[in-house]
């Protein structure tokens, strides 16, 4: 693209550009009442400007923080953009956050308004609104269930739009004045980090940073206004903000919003996006579901699937990456494509996918090969909220499962002596909101930002390789390296294991907590006539424990071959009686393990693993979806696993 970033350095400018350049192409789609509704850039812009004026009329001032909470839908994306037009700062929040979590963020940023999706969010805010200083009004999109609410601070979005569309020269003038005041240095969005350690921090990002970073990413993968994507990841997550708002706006691409979280899979198939972003658990879940269904398929289908998947494994990646492949193999791949790959991709909704991204966590080589051999261009990228996501990305023909790519344009990387990755980027954050101490600790005077991740540049590929969170890397008592995430990921590659937490820093040996995957293990139980009524019952089944023991020993075997990691072998483990849950604060909303918290909460279990007991009684507090608390009691058995010696030593 030839536009220079100096002229298009704010969201309002990008919107105006999109209207004049791609005015009649689709900008937003949403499935409503079973039918996909489309808004072109022109129509979207009209809605955004009406909404901007409506919000001005409602009393939103420049510099006000406006919370945006709800599932992905055009009207909420428009609300974000409307806030940016009128100089207010949008603060997207996780829609499944409980009221107390919201209270923390809303009072931290001093939000004065909130635009929310439905009654559920309204209820949560009303519950805490007494304690929020300076909070004024709530705007809701879906009026369902809200008819009887008698509250003068509650407005429907339709009403706000109506206020904004009333012809008023004064409002137009005020909007124009405010839009002109927005510059590249104006705050574009305040995003709260998921907070793997302690309370989440508010990351202040300017228009320039957001547009700079997303522009670099768009250029790297040549996004155009013909691209279309499905926006289904939480709006509060930086990834969705960058992709659905920044990259979408930057390229003029079309954003498609599913009907709801449950229909995502169906909607994905209907839309068949050209670009798709999924976190590693999603890719794992999809692959697991394919294999579960193949298990249940007829004999012929099963054989054909196995045969052609083996062939895809052999040549699929080479074909995708445009390397030399023999004619016969190509023909066989085409046949496989006709019979297996294409229908499978169609089922998954990936028929038209040009680029698929994964980020946020390590992903197994097998998983990577599975998708790439089918012809799905799955690539890794690395980034963080503080960097407006994009730091490194992989090119189409240099994709590896254990590295995360090279720095994109505008990003400079260096590795600190401690092993921590540092960067300087156009997308670097301005500051942590109201937290100069943390800002100073993360970003130095020269603009280098510490990622908190340990890693190095891989010599063979020239790409960045991540080891673990810098502060999680520790040492066992005997001095061996302890890198928990590395081992946990290896465990999680088994479909039966949903979540794993490893302990061992400053200890004699490593132990682990495991969560079973209800889909995979449930399917197995059904096949083997094992009845169960709850997660807890299935998790405590002794046959399940045996299966997991095999998995753990497989991992131990693999670790034994790696001289760096052999100390991390798991000597004992237990299957937790409940799933780790963000509502209980055990993992973040983006499913990252909160290590210190779990260590403290399950202190009794950890010490039991380091004792000689064969089982342990425990009582755990759980939070239900409606915020109530209850207790779960269980007796967990502790399973011993075999430890293997270093292979070299044995030979």
């Amino acid at each position, binding site marked *: 693209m030839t536009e220079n970033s100096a002229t298009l350095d704010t969201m309002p400018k990008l919107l105006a550009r999109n209207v004049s350049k791609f005015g009649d192409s689709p900008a937003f789609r949403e499935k409503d009442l079973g039918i996909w509704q489309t808004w072109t850039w022109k129509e979207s812009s009209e809605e955004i400007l009406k909404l901007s004026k409506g919000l001005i009329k409602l009393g939103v001032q420049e510099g006000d923080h406006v919370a945006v909470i709800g599932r992905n839908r055009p009207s909420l994306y428009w609300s974000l953009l409307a806030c940016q037009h009128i100089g207010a700062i949008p603060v997207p929040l996780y829609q499944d956050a409980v009221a107390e979590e919201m209270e923390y963020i809303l009072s931290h940023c001093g939000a004065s308004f909130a635009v929310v999706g439905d009654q559920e969010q309204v209820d949560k805010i009303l519950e805490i609104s007494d304690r929020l200083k300076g909070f004024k009004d709530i705007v809701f999109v879906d009026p369902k269930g809200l*008819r009887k609410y008698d509250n003068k601070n509650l407005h429907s979005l339709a009403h706000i739009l109506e206020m904004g569309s009333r012809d008023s020269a004064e409002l137009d003038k005020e909007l124009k004045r405010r839009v002109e005041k927005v510059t590249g240095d104006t705050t574009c969005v305040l995003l709260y980090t998921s907070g793997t350690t302690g309370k989440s921090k508010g990351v202040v990002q300017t228009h320039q940073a957001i547009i700079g970073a997303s522009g670099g990413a768009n250029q790297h993968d040549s996004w155009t206004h013909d691209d279309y994507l499905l926006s289904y990841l939480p709006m509060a997550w930086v990834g969705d903000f960058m992709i659905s708002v920044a990259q979408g706006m930057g390229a003029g691409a079309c954003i498609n919003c599913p009907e*709801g979280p449950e*229909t995502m899979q*169906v909607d994905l198939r209907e839309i068949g996006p050209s670009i798709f972003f999924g976190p590693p658990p999603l890719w794992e879940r999809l692959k697991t579901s394919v294999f579960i269904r193949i298990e249940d398929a007829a004999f012929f289908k099963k054989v054909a699937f196995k045969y052609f998947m083996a062939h895809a494994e052999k040549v699929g990646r080479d074909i995708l990456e445009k390397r030399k492949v023999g004619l016969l193999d190509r023909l066989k791949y085409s046949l496989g494509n006709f019979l297996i790959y294409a229908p499978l991709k169609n089922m998954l909704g990936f028929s038209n996918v040009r680029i698929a991204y994964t980020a946020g966590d390590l992903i197994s080589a097998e998983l990577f090969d599975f998708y790439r051999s089918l012809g799905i261009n799955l690539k890794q990228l690395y980034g963080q909220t503080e960097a407006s996501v994009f730091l490194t990305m992989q090119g189409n023909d240099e994709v590896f499962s254990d590295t995360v790519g090279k720095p994109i344009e505008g990003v400079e990387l260096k590795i600190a002596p401690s092993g921590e990755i540092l960067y300087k980027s156009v997308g670097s954050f301005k500051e942590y909101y109201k937290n100069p101490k943390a800002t100073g600790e993360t970003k130095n005077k020269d603009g280098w930002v510490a990622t908190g991740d340990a890693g190095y540049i891989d010599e063979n590929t020239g790409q960045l390789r991540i080891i673990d969170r810098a502060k999680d890397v520790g040492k066992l008592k005997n001095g061996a390296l302890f890198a928990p995430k590395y081992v946990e990921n290896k465990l999680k590659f088994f479909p039966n294991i949903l979540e794993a937490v490893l302990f061992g820093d400053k200890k004699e040996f490593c132990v682990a907590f495991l969560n079973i995957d209800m889909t995979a293990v449930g399917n197995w139980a059904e096949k083997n006539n094992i009845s169960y009524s709850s997660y807890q019952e299935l998790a405590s089944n002794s046959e399940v424990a045996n299966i997991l023991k095999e998995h753990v020993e497989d991992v131990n075997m693999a670790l034994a071959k790696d001289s760096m990691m052999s100390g991390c072998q798991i000597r004992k483990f237990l299957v937790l009686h409940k799933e780790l849950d963000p509502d209980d604060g055990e993992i973040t909303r983006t499913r990252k393990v909160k290590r210190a918290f779990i260590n403290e909460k399950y202190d009794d279990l950890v010490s039991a693993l380091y004792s000689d007991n064969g089982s342990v009684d425990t009582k755990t507090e759980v939070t239900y979806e409606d915020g109530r608390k209850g207790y779960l009691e269980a007796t967990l058995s502790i399973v011993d696993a075999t430890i293997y010696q270093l292979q070299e030593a044995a030979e």
Partner: protein
Amino acid sequence: MNEKAPKIMMEVKNINLRFGGVVAIQGVSFDIHEGEIRAIIGPNGAGKSSMLNVINGFYHPQEGEIWFDGQKRPSMEPYEVAKTGIARTFQNIALFKGMTTIENVMTGRQLQMNKNIFWQMLRYGPAIEEEVQHRKRCEEIIDFLEINHIRKTPVGSLPYGLQKRVELARALAMEPNLLLLDEPMAGMNVEEKQDMSRFIVEVNEEFGTTIALIEHDMAVVMDLADRVVVLDYGKLLADGTPKEVQSNQAVIDAYLGVPH
């Protein structure tokens, strides 16, 4: 909500229903106010479902009168009753198992589709227009009951709780004035019951639909209902607000049990 002179929507007077020598209902009278949630409770075999079947025209009582909308109702067949704006769900789900959710819900619009078979076969012009309108209404109900994700799933393969919801959707598609629910929460787990209760309240509030329901879960009944009728061995045992009924000694003895 009906403190001031509630309007009586339906009144059953002195109903007697016998099957041969078996007396199912014996001289039962009560009324249903417009806009309320009316619960009918009682032990097994008390005549609750029979009562719904009488209201719905499936059974014809030997004696007694049914007044609906201020008029005495002549003996009617179920489809005639349905035309007067009374819809119901069944204790044992009565959906078309091989059809999808949307198809099942669309059958609820059957009575309101007027174009003849020839237009419908043509799939063009007025018949299609009519179908589009009805489909829109059905989609709104599907959205309301949050069953979008199973819109095109055959109902036979759905879990029980969802099937119950589809049945409610089909009954709502008739846009009834009076909705009869026969054990809407039987066999559900706590979460499904919570969902269903929420939907029943929302239907009542949003659409203003009057609801008469049979339910065994006392906690649910006492929470949901504005007024409760208690039947026992085909006879009326009590009639009043949940509080009144709960403290009625005859009801406690017959049904609720005594706290130990």
